[in-house]
């Protein structure tokens, strides 16, 4: 399949470019690239605790990566992951904290996760509807919504939701907390397994279902899809709605699987990083998992070698991946 071959080709090029740029930076910083890369890999993939941290970092990126990939396949660009995640995390934490005591754990998790998905979906749906029915560009709308949601969340928190003088909501009951995976004390929780399942579900949705087919055809040939009678407008609003929900799951991951509350600044940057993940994966749902792991390794590995190399190097390397992916996407369109 050509799509898969292209994705693999891109991944190889992106990795080589990242290693080349990273090596130059390491030399400039006075470190030995061989040693630094060795350390980076050993402490991320070579030991259980480090690998657990990689999984922990990759998990929300799978969700926000999918949140970009689905609209990308349908011809829309979702940069609203930040706002969708924040809205979802806040709603999830507030509802989870208010759940009646004694609720069985699976039910509590299910309810809290559903709330997160719905809250993100509402933001996504608003973005999609503004684009399709009002003609406002989805990137502009998302920028606006990101800012509004960040502001409103902080205001709501300070006014009534944060506990005492903190910037944190009440801790959710134990029933709603996701168990850890048990990887040598790492932060990885069972939400990593959830991310795998959701990626597979999205892949199936794209490949086998009517709505997935409509997304793909709309993204590749809007006019032809419309002329053939596909509901292209509704499908695109749905793509943004589902995308918002997927980004919302990243919020649930942080609240239910890590912080057990909403905190100001929770998940910041993960929505944007999802763009890079989706571009590297060329919008292919299963490839998102690999792309998220690459970013997980870079993020965690950067910490591991921060005594040798400035930690800003990781930001630079992640940006290199984005540039390679963006350039490759442009070539495909030609």
């Amino acid at each position, binding site marked *: 399949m*050509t799509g898969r071959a292209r994705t693999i080709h891109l991944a190889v090029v992106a990795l080589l470019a990242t290693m080349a740029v990273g090596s130059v930076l390491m030399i400039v910083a006075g470190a030995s690239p061989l040693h630094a890369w060795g350390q980076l890999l050993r402490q991320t993939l070579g030991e259980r605790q480090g690998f657990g941290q990689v999984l922990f970092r990759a998990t929300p990126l799978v969700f926000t990566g999918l949140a970009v990939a689905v609209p990308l396949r349908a011809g829309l660009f979702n940069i609203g992951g930040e706002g969708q995640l924040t809205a979802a995390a806040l709603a999830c934490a507030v509802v989870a904290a208010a759940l009646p005591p004694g609720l069985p754990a699976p039910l509590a998790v299910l309810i809290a996760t559903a709330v997160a998905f719905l809250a993100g979906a509402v933001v996504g749906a608003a973005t999609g509807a503004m684009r399709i029915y009002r003609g406002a560009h989805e990137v502009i709308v998302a920028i606006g919504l990101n800012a509004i949601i960040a502001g409103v969340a902080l205001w709501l928190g300070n006014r009534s939701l944060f506990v005492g003088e903190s910037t944190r909501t009440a801790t959710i009951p134990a029933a709603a907390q996701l168990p850890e995976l048990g990887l040598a004390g790492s932060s990885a929780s069972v939400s990593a397994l959830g991310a795998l399942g959701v990626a597979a579900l999205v892949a199936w949705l794209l490949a*086998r*279902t*009517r*709505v997935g*087919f409509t997304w*793909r*055809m709309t993204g*590749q*040939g809007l*006019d*032809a*899809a*419309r*002329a*053939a*009678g*596909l*509901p292209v407008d509704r499908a695109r609003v749905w793509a943004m709605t589902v995308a918002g929900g997927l980004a919302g799951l990243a919020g649930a991951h942080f609240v239910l699987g890590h912080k057990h509350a909403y905190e100001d600044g929770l998940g910041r940057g993960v929505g944007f990083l999802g763009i890079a993940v989706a571009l590297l994966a060329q919008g292919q749902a299963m490839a998102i998992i690999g792309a998220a792991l690459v970013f997980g390794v870079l993020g965690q590995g950067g910490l591991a070698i921060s005594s040798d190399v400035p930690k800003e190097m990781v930001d630079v390397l992640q940006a290199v991946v984005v540039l390679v992916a963006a350039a490759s996407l442009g070539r495909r369109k030609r």
Partner: protein
Amino acid sequence: MTAPALRVRASRRFGDCVALADAALEVAAGTVHALCGENGAGKSTLMRVVYGLERADAGVLELGERVDLARHDVAGAQARGVGMVHQHGMLVPTLTLADNAALGHEPVRGGRYDRAAAARALVAAAARLGQRLDPDALAGELTVGEQQRAELAMVAARATRLLILDEPTALLAPREVDALFAMVRAFAAGGGAVVLVTHKLDEVLAVADEVTVLRGGRTVASWSAEVTAAEIARAMIGGEPPPPATRPPPPRPDAAIGLAIDGLVVPGPRGGGVVDVTLRVAAGEVVGVAGVEGNGQRELALAIAGLAPVARGAVAVGGVDVTRAKVAARRARGLAHVPEDRHRHGLVQGASVADNVALGRLGEVGRGALIDRAAVAALTAQLIAAHDVRPADPSARVDALSGGNQQKLVVARELDRPGLRAVLAVHPTRGVDLAASARIHARLRDVAAAGAAVLLIAADLDELLALCHRVVVMYRGALVGELTGAALAAPDARARLGAWMVGATP
């Protein structure tokens, strides 16, 4: 015997694709030479090599004298008196004809652009070819035919040796074709040579002194004496040409109305569009809409298909009003659409053949919220086999198919389906080779014979006269004339339709 105005041999590959395989052409001064061939035969590529737009991998070019092909470019071609008129006009619509003619070669007097001199030069150039034109007219306000004649005059003013016309008549009404060819003859009579790139055989016979046929990038035949259309067609396709299209049996007198259009008004660009069209197509009837492009046919088609908003009036399929219905509802009612622009409206270019089949047939291959991939595969295989789509590979990307095969795929998907009541076919054979055209015509005939109402919008009068029970002419957004029955079969049918197409009143 003097040296020919043009002698060329050229080879050119694009990747794996051989565009020219030592194609050869020789054109004598003072003659009109037709260069014929199917799509992809290499006609346009060879002429682009001569005009310096395309490099040749190997070959020889003589324009009176030997030209170094490796250094040949457009400036060099123009300096040697070669000019080219393209199929789609190159005029700036907001400038006058005189200004257009002067662009890049502005006459100067006293350091300023001398507009009067430019106008005089253009009028004189047109007059040498027997044409009168208004140098102060805005290019954008002229008809396509007038623009083309003006452009020909401009190019001919500079091109003294050789004039290349690439499919110049694709957008013209018959009367405009005659006017254009009169200019071409006048140019040749003045000693210049003309290459007319075309695949319309009647034009070849009407205007050309000599004919060369390309097939698969090679020169396969050349005549300088009398030749028949059948001989040229055989050379073009390398075998017997398919039999001409035939009309389906006439609709029964009591046939129901398959497609009804009532007082339709559809806004178009620059105040154009559909002004007022009422038309009924009975089940089993083929009705043709003739007209020069840009007289509202596109808006009419898009409105019937559900892709353009209707200002007033109604459209009904099989007796059910669909004026405000979505595309999907119209299709479910039995409307099929072979769109004018198959790249944009017909197929999703980056998707596979199978996906493109599923695109228009979701009702058959969908199972609830899912798509039955086995059903898609079966339907795709069946359509590929029945309509000879090549390559016969359901997973091939559509943009890897030739234009003819893409159109066969669209026609297969749209017309080879159950429950058809009305068919809207817009320029269904444009840019499609003879063999594929014959298949498409046969398919249109069959669906009409099976009881569908067919509305055929086309510029090609041969196509309309061969297939239709009735032909109407669209001019400035309205239907201005209609021929049916004996009048359609009469020898003057072409002339009458052609006259209406340029505004004569019946």
